[in-house]
């Protein structure tokens, strides 16, 4: 079995598990909506006001990031609780294949939730989020966030504090993703050209390349006994 097939086997396993339980998607989706509701209360957003334009990119990415953290937490805690992590590690695959498999399935779940969130967001706040550039930003931001989140989640799942620890470790490290994604999203909403938001996209690309590479080199130390 090639390396890629091994990765896809892990992704497929996660998809099947999710299709049978649906616990991850429902939790992430409902939580994202709740974040939007809370934002609405906190900033008293009114439809199509100037305020919405100012707050919308931030609210959108906070919802994505927080629901992403929920998903990331489940990714490894689920394996750990059911004693499946040991099984995964015993499988005759390079440990980094587990990292990439978990990263891809997290990206997939996050993207599905985000795909559902964009129309909801558009309806709630009256800003048009249907834009191809925005799609690119969402994908790049999600990849970067999940890349660094997956390795940290693999660690925190094996600690005493578990779910509590992941956001504390992840958010300062993933801050550049959030900054760049929020800025690029704001740029799209403000009608800036591609050239004007290019530097934010470059930052997202750089992040999405550097962190999988760093995780690739260190993941073995996180899972070995």
């Amino acid at each position, binding site marked *: 079995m090639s390396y890629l097939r091994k990765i896809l086997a892990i992704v497929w396993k996660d998809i099947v598990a999710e299709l049978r339980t649906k616990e991850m998607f429902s939790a992430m989706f409902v939580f994202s909506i709740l974040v939007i509701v809370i934002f609405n209360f906190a900033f008293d957003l009114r439809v199509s006001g100037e305020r919405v334009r100012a707050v919308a990119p931030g609210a959108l990415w906070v919802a994505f990031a927080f629901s992403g953290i929920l998903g990331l937490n489940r990714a490894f805690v689920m394996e750990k609780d059911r004693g499946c992590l040991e099984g995964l590690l015993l499988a005759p695959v390079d440990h980094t294949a587990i990292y990439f498999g978990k990263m891809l399935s997290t990206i997939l779940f996050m993207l599905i939730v985000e795909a559902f969130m964009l129309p909801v967001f558009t309806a709630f706040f009256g800003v048009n989020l249907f834009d191809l550039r925005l799609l690119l930003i969402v994908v790049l931001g999600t990849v970067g966030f999940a890349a660094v989140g997956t390795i940290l989640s693999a660690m*925190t799942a094996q600690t005493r504090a578990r779910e509590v620890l992941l956001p504390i470790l992840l958010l300062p490290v993933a*801050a550049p993703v959030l*900054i760049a994604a929020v800025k690029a999203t704001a740029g799209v909403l403000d009608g800036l050209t591609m050239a004007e938001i290019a530097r*934010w996209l470059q930052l997202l690309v750089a992040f999405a390349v550097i*962190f999988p590479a760093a995780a690739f080199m260190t993941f073995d130390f996180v899972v070995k006994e």
Partner: protein
Amino acid sequence: MERTDKREPLLIALTALSGVMVLVALYLALLGAPDANLQSETGRYAQRIIYFHIATAWVGFLAFFVTFVAGIGFLRTQNRAWDIVALSSAEIGTVFMLGVLVSGSIWARPAWGVWWVWDERLTISLIQFLIYVGYLMLRSSVEDPSRRARFAAVYGVVAFISVPINFIAIRMWRTQHPLMFGTEEGGLGPNMMFAFFFSLITFTVWYVTLMWHRIRLERLRDDLEALKQELVG
């Protein structure tokens, strides 16, 4: 246990040296250095915090670099000595980073009229501090020593890589807005330069001293643990 005894006098001397150097640096910063070319009296007094503030920031970031290098050292060798260095440096760095935030705020109040602005350097310092806190929380949340060391090393490496990216991102984020306040140093005079670099060296020596103490403490703890195990059997 014997290994620390031989170098004990050297450690005491170094401790005394850093104590004296801190006092001299304090004198230079408060009295020795000439007044800054500022209008308000409060401003001139407040400006003197810069000597300690920047030196503290330097140690704060240096300590994280040491944690990063020691983390790589640990991952390559699995040697406990590297882990002790990483832990010691992270703990000292946390304290210094907190010092940066506090001394910065004390200075910002008279200089800018506010305790805090989301300026690039302040923001990166705060994120750096939070990374340190996360690092220590991660350590305290893992019981098995070898796993703790591995996790801490991995986080040290991953977080260190994120610092320059964070800095670039925050810098780009800030340049979108007009700079609210000018940069703080309008050029330091020769006498100010001396006080400035003296503080920088002093704080570096101080850092080395603290590192030595902290590493020694951790080794003694290890020895004590080993003795306990021996006694219990």
